[in-house]
């Protein structure tokens, strides 16, 4: 009896501790969000979204150049990364059974773990240096390189979820394999692939390191992709490290906008993915 009581007690304690661990894990998220809201919400006004940087001490500056810059650079990253990543994912799902598929899958997983700063210096040697100048284009390509392995794996998973019966039905109706794959299977998985893209985009939208040596940053509003461009996480980084309170204020606001963007994308994507998984 004694033994059982002790074991029960240990069990309850441990269970309680796992509750505690979960609470502890979520705590930083709550604290960070709360802090960003408290410190950043006050600084978000119309100016913030419409004006660009002004010299220190001048009033009325904003993050417009950084917000638009992020949209453009991430857009470029998608233009580069989405086709290649999704196509690779389809390859892995449709033809990836053999040794080559194994190698590609393995490399995708490995590349997923390569630090983004290494991608950054690689993009610098391959794009910035030969081109002779910093550019949003180089930044977009660097982010695209991060997107490709992520998208390859999530696309593969989504395409794999499509039931074989669909494939067989299409083949039975006379569709060649390529048409089955493209028109039937991929189209069915399209929503899932899209949400995979959303998650990946959320991730790269927050990346700073690769942009340090590629897009460089710009205090002016610019939409020229062959030149340096501001980006939201980059601007937050520069302003956060500065000594001016005015800069800190704006860094908090910028961080709030960034995290709202990233979390919104992530939540939407995850909701759809879970719905898909339940139905599949």
């Amino acid at each position: 009896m004694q033994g059982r009581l002790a074991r029960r007690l240990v069990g309850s304690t441990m269970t309680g501790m796992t509750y505690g661990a979960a609470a502890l894990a979520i705590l930083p998220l709550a604290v960070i969000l709360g802090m960003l809201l408290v410190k950043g919400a006050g600084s978000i006004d119309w100016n913030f979204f419409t004006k660009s940087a002004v010299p220190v001490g001048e009033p009325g500056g904003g993050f417009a150049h950084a917000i638009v810059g992020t949209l453009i650079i991430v857009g470029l990253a998608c233009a580069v990364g989405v086709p290649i990543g999704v196509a690779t994912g389809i390859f892995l799902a449709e033809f990836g059974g053999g040794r080559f598929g194994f190698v590609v899958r393995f490399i995708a997983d490995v590349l997923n773990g390569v630090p983004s700063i290494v991608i950054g210096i690689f993009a610098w040697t391959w794009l910035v240096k030969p081109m002779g100048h910093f550019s949003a284009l180089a930044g977009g390509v660097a982010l695209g390189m991060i997107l490709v392995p992520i998208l390859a794996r999530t696309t593969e998973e989504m395409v794999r979820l499509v039931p074989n019966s669909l494939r067989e039905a299409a083949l039975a109706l006379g569709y060649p394999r390529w048409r089955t794959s493209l028109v039937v299977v991929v189209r069915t998985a399209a929503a899932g692939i899209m949400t995979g893209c959303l998650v990946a985009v959320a991730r790269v939208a927050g990346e700073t390191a690769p942009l340090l040596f590629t897009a460089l940053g710009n205090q002016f509003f610019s939409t020229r992709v062959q030149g340096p461009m501001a980006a939201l996480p980059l601007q937050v980084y520069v302003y956060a490290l500065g000594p001016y309170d005015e800069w800190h204020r704006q860094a908090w606001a910028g961080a709030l906008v960034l995290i709202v963007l990233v979390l919104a994308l992530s939540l939407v994507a995850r909701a759809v993915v879970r719905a898909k998984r339940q139905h599949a």
Partner: protein
Amino acid sequence: MTDIPATALEPELAPKTPVDERWRALRTVSRGDVIYRSALTVVALLLPLLLLLIAVELVSNAMPAVSKFGFGFLTHSTWDPVRGEFGALPLIFGTLYSSLIALVIAVPLALACAVFLTEFAPRWLRTPVATLIELLAAVPSVIYGLWGIFVLIPLLRDHVWKVARHALGWLPIFGGVFYGPSVLAAGVILSIMILPYIAAVSREVLLAVPPSQREAGLALGATRWETVWRVILPYGRAGIIGAVILGLGRALGETMAVTMVIGNRHEVSASLLQPGYTIAAAIANEFSEAVSDIHLSALFMVGAVLFVITVIVNALARVLVWRVARGSAVGSTAI
């Protein structure tokens, strides 16, 4: 139908009925298929190509430093751009030390969370809590850094250490004056950043454990906790180790949050409270400004070291995780 092309028979007898064509479409590879498959294969080749290019680029740019310093580069501590002497030991040490601290803090917590989510949490709580933990991974590094500078460091320096100093200050691991920016601060932030990865992958691993194992444990009279501790966790051991190693890989490469809180100092120190430096942080700080070619080459060399370490660590992690979770894109939603 046979495999002999129809035209081998007497031409006027070669059939062109729709039925024959459909058979042919099914049995032979149509041109569309060939094009489709080749196109996708070519695109898929880009990933291995990218890995190769990165490796080649890093190594070739690192060669000047390698030929000048040899492998002593990895064991010397002086980082002196004026004299052109570069020793990467503090960088490598800092990278490993901060990641170790991160693991020490994150692994027990993450495992506890994974167990919570798979075993003890009431059903209605599972998805919300899992989502919240995964959202930790979505927070950009620079925001963690911001939080680190303005909240964590003052908290540690002005509150936690003031109290803990009396009890712990005599240990060499907590030696020296605590300025704020330190390996400890970096380790704490890293632990928050890697926790969701370890938790998500461990959760998938635990979910892959056959229910029969759990049932067998309970049937033999074990409490729920005992089943977890003695049956389920050991069963998923390989995968869990893989998850931990995956978390390690993440911690090794983290840049922005680390450089904002670690103090950026090229020095090896046993004390957690002293500033340090990691490879990623050094590259972020010094790369665009390394005036001499040898300085740049030295940075490429540490970059190559980091690259090799993370490739090995990630490969190892994936192998371990695959063994349990069977090749699916485990934890991909957490990536």
